[in-house]
């Protein structure tokens, strides 16, 4: 079969492009690791500014010792019923504290991150928000980030 090639023809349908691979080998023992939570589920402290449901590329720094009762969700892209019942099902802060107490990990990070994924300005997320979050985690000496999203 002969393929017809038309130069300059473009698809009218936007297709997602998978970004180039980023992979950092894990070389530490979990028992020596400080672990942070990073969630795209719209988690923030009740005292912090809620996310803009129409699209928001900002993020919130959540101090590591924040009680789970002080957290809430602002995200219009998924059913919030479960996370409103128990924040740990998207942001397992109490579970992480228990793992630190048990010695499974070294420590809970001094700061966690919440943002609102599910769309918005993806370019901003990739080029600004993501690198800014990585800077915060580096500054705070975080070894491992556990993300919840998608």
């Amino acid at each position, binding site marked *: 079969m002969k393929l017809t090639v038309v130069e300059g023809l473009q698809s009218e349908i936007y297709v*997602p492009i*998978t*970004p*180039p*691979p*980023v*992979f*950092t*080998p*894990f070389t530490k023992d*979990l028992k020596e690791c400080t*672990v942070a939570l990073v969630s795209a*589920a719209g988690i923030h402290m009740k005292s912090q500014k809620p996310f803009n449901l129409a699209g928001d590329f900002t993020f919130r720094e959540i101090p590591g010792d924040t009680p789970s009762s002080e957290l809430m969700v602002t995200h219009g892209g*998924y*059913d*919030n*019923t*479960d*996370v409103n*019942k*128990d924040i*740990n*099902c*998207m*942001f*397992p802060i109490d*579970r*992480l504290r*228990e*793992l630190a107490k048990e010695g*499974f*990990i070294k420590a809970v990070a001094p700061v966690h991150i919440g943002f609102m994924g599910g769309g918005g300005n993806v370019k901003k997320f990739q080029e600004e928000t993501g690198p800014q979050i990585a800077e915060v985690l580096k500054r705070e000496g975080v070894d*491992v*980030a*556990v*993300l*919840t*999203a*998608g």
Partner: protein
Amino acid sequence: MLIAALPPVAKQQGSPRIVAPMVPMGANVGEPNNKVMQTAILKDALNALMTIDTYGKVIPLPYEYKAKI
């Protein structure tokens, strides 16, 4: 390490390390108030750091929660 409810999407978006329990979007770490399930998912996610050695790997986790909608 990403705990994903929609692993194909997570993979397509370029997440380097993915674990995927059988959960709905919005309860990625398991059933609300189910401490046993949440702990197991979180522990398995952390343990997977030691077994995932290449980019884009998805590890299914054997925990299931179906939300009552």
